[in-house]
């Protein structure tokens, strides 16, 4: 399955009933970069993420996914997308191993990768065969990350992944993301935690009431102060 190296979002709009969630948003995502999608609550960040992940059909505009110059569609795209959200995306009644084996089956990956993924996130071996609903928040977070990484996505979308993580957890996750970015993954993070992504983000996009009001990728990596400054100037 061709790894995605470019995602072109062109004038995307979305309306929910009387509410306008997105209007004329255009953005280009490229491989090996981490894009921070910022904005106030209700600015449209989650909707944009939904559109990019093919779960939300835009009312107008297009999203084009490319791999090595050719356009990819449908299931080929979905197989390359990984999602890490605030919810664990895992079934509480199943164990970590069972959850990941289920995912492996859906994505057509050999189940041999399951143990490796769990090792990579450092999930306690004794917990792996227990039902996921017995896990602590930190363990659930690791399981969710293992789930996202198992399929080796080339486009990783993160929706408020740092919420509920302690400082160490946030730092560890930040490092993981940095490593993925260096590996060539397209990383998109929606978050309010600027500290956690500082020093790794090279692409900033700020939404306000559904419109893209600021987009920058001039510097190599934005530090905390630069991010805070951009946010306060544009998000309100």
């Amino acid at each position, binding site marked *: 399955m061709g790894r995605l190296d470019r995602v072109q979002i062109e004038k995307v709009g979305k*309306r*929910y*009933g009387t*509410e*306008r969630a997105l*209007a004329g948003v255009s953005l280009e995502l490229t491989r090996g970069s981490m894009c921070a999608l910022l904005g106030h609550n209700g600015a449209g960040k989650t909707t944009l993420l939904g559109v990019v992940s093919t779960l939300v*059909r835009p*009312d107008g505009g297009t999203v084009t996914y490319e791999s090595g110059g050719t356009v990819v569609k449908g299931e080929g795209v979905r197989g390359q997308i990984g999602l890490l959200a605030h919810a664990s995306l895992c079934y509480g009644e199943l164990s970590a191993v069972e959850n990941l084996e289920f995912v492996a089956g859906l994505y057509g990956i050999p189940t041999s990768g399951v143990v490796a993924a769990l090792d990579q996130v450092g999930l306690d071996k004794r917990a792996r065969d227990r039902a996921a609903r017995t896990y602590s928040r930190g363990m659930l977070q690791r399981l969710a990350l293992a789930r996202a990484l198992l399929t080796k996505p080339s486009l990783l979308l993160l929706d408020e992944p740092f919420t509920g993580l302690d400082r160490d957890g946030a730092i560890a996750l930040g490092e993981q993301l940095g490593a993925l970015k260096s590996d060539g993954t397209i990383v998109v993070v929606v978050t309010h935690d600027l500290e956690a992504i500082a020093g790794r983000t090279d692409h900033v996009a700020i939404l306000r*009431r559904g*419109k893209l009001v600021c987009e920058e990728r001039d510097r190599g990596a934005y530090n905390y102060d630069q991010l805070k400054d951009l946010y306060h100037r544009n998000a309100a």
Partner: protein
Amino acid sequence: MNKFLVPILCVVAAVGLVVSTWLVFYGSPLQYTIDGESGRLVGTSLFFNQKIFYFHVAHAFVLFAAVGVAGISSIFYLKNRNPKWDDIAAGTTDVAVAFGAAVLATGIIWAKAAWDVWWQWEPRLTMSLLLWLILVGYALVRKFAGPSADRVAAGMAIFGMFGVPFIYTMVGADSHPGSGKNGVVATLDPAMRPAMWITVATFMLWFVLLIIVRVQGTRAERELRELRERALDLGVLE
């Protein structure tokens, strides 16, 4: 849409209402059955009460048309998500709920006059009730489902429309012989037919007119909203 369309339709509908009312009360015969030999009344003779039949049937035609229009409109909406289809589906069902209530109310009055019971589970009344329930369900979904209301409602309209042939078969198969309204339209006294068809046509027109007005209203609301958003974006408005 031509700005004269609504006024013209209003006039035609008004004329239609006057004409059909006149026809119903003066232009069609009283309904009663007389035995040829003895000159006595036999069978069901409703006389004046039967007049309500004209209004009842007209509204029932409209109910069927409404479910069809809403269903097809919803299919278009799901396929290309153009808001105008959603507006049509929503407007149609809103108006049809009112028409459906009229069908059932006149049906109840008819039932009391014809069979001396307030309700009868006979084919046409049952079918009208079931169609009406689909429309009411649609209205409730539209009102209470939140942001995904348009999709759920569209689904309900489409499934509802596909269910109509099944409802039809189901009520038909259960008809008790001689339950009054079977084949009433076909066996109608020819002198009554003009009144009936004109009434039907008038109420169909009235129905279409109400939908057009409703859809225009929704569209105007949307355009106003979009203008306001543009102004907010440009900083012209607070």
